[in-house]
């Protein structure tokens, strides 16, 4: 099992700090969600960890070894990107064979069985694949790579709802059989929330939060009620977002409430409920607050 540590990693593109002093740890066997708004730095971070681009400062270690001095370690990570680096006019089945030849750990029979489940025509060349099937093809390569760490960058881009379901199920089935560390970068938070064990939220190049999904949802609380009462009640907590509709206000606070605090609020006519991951994400990453 492989663990990855990122320490004070930074990368600028011109005046933009694409990744700004990011530190995080990826523990073996967990499924991470890498979430962030467009341009938050998700893809840059994954490219930095896999050393496709070089950081301005900071370091990445795999199992305690610095990647910049031991690049063979990068073989432990398979990074599914939005591009294919294979020759376009090769048929899918030829590429599966090719992968088998070049990556000893690649599981060709598994790749072929996945292709059958997704009804991916193996006689097609990459250029003949639709957007969805091009993504499916790259996702299959990632699943069959057998690398101990797999990064999925937008693995369901262009997939229909049935294929997205199939992807998540196959991913889970695969991980139950062969546990590994997985990072899924996606904008479709609602549908992936239950698959994730931990989330890393990037905002403007920085880690806004890294926490287990369960703890995060346990901590966040949605308070609803009359506007002035909600405002007074939430004043002593960390408010990450609020919204007003007529006389009603909702506010998301990031503090677990003790039973007596909750009871006091209920006596004021306030209602408390849990928040889903997507709503929390929007609140945490929206400067206007929602």
């Amino acid at each position: 099992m492989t663990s990855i540590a990122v320490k004070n990693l930074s990368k600028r593109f011109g005046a933009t700090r694409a990744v700004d002093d990011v530190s995080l740890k990826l523990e073996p066997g967990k499924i991470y969600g890498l979430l962030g708004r467009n341009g938050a730095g998700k893809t840059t971070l994954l490219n930095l960890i896999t050393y496709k681009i070089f950081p301005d400062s900071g370091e990445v270690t795999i199992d305690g070894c610095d990647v910049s001095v031991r690049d063979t370690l990068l073989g432990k990570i398979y990074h599914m990107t939005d591009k294919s680096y294979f020759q376009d006019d090769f048929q899918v089945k030829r590429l599966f064979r090719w992968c088998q030849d070049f990556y000893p750990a690649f599981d060709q029979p598994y790749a072929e069985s996945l292709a059958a489940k997704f009804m991916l025509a193996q006689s097609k060349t990459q250029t003949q694949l639709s957007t969805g099937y091009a993504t499916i093809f790259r996702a299959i390569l990632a699943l069959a790579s057998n690398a101990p760490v797999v990064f999925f960058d937008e693995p369901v881009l262009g997939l229909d709802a049935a294929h997205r379901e199939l992807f998540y199920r196959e991913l889970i089935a695969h991980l139950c059989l062969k546990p590994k560390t997985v990072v899924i970068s996606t904008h479709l938070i609602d549908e992936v929330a239950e698959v994730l064990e931990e989330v890393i939220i990037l905002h403007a190049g920085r880690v806004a939060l890294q926490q287990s999904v369960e703890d995060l949802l346990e901590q966040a609380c949605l308070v609803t009620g009359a506007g002035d009462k909600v405002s007074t009640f939430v004043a002593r907590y960390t408010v990450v977002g609020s919204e007003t509709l007529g006389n009603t206000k909702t506010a998301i606070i990031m503090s677990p409430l003790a039973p007596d605090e909750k009871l006091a609020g209920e006596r004021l006519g306030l209602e408390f409920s849990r928040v889903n991951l997507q709503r929390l994400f929007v609140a945490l990453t929206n400067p206007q607050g929602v």
Partner: protein
Amino acid sequence: MLIDFKIDRPIFLQLAEAIEDDVLDGRYPEDGQIVSTTDLAVTLRINPATANKAISCLVDEGVIYKRRGVGMFVAPGARDKILNKRRERYWQNFVEPMLHEAAKLGIAEEDVIAIIQERGRVK
């Protein structure tokens, strides 16, 4: 067992309760084998660690026992254990919210009792 997960409680709790429901209504008899955590995770499309956590809770409560290399089974006496636990929570989970809502709607307590007596007879 197909569960429509709600936001109000952690998923592992909802899963544990769904398995308990299946034991309560006899779908899983005592000493009967229950589906594997892999099947649970894949079918319900949840993180395998979440499925494991639900099962661990049930093992801790003595509802399920594991036989190495064979699988997971409903413990003898599991049904009574679940019944006792659920009866203790009945007030909190059902009666309290009902009275709370009645108060909000201005329904008097004696009217609540009358409604239960009038229409509430399930059998």
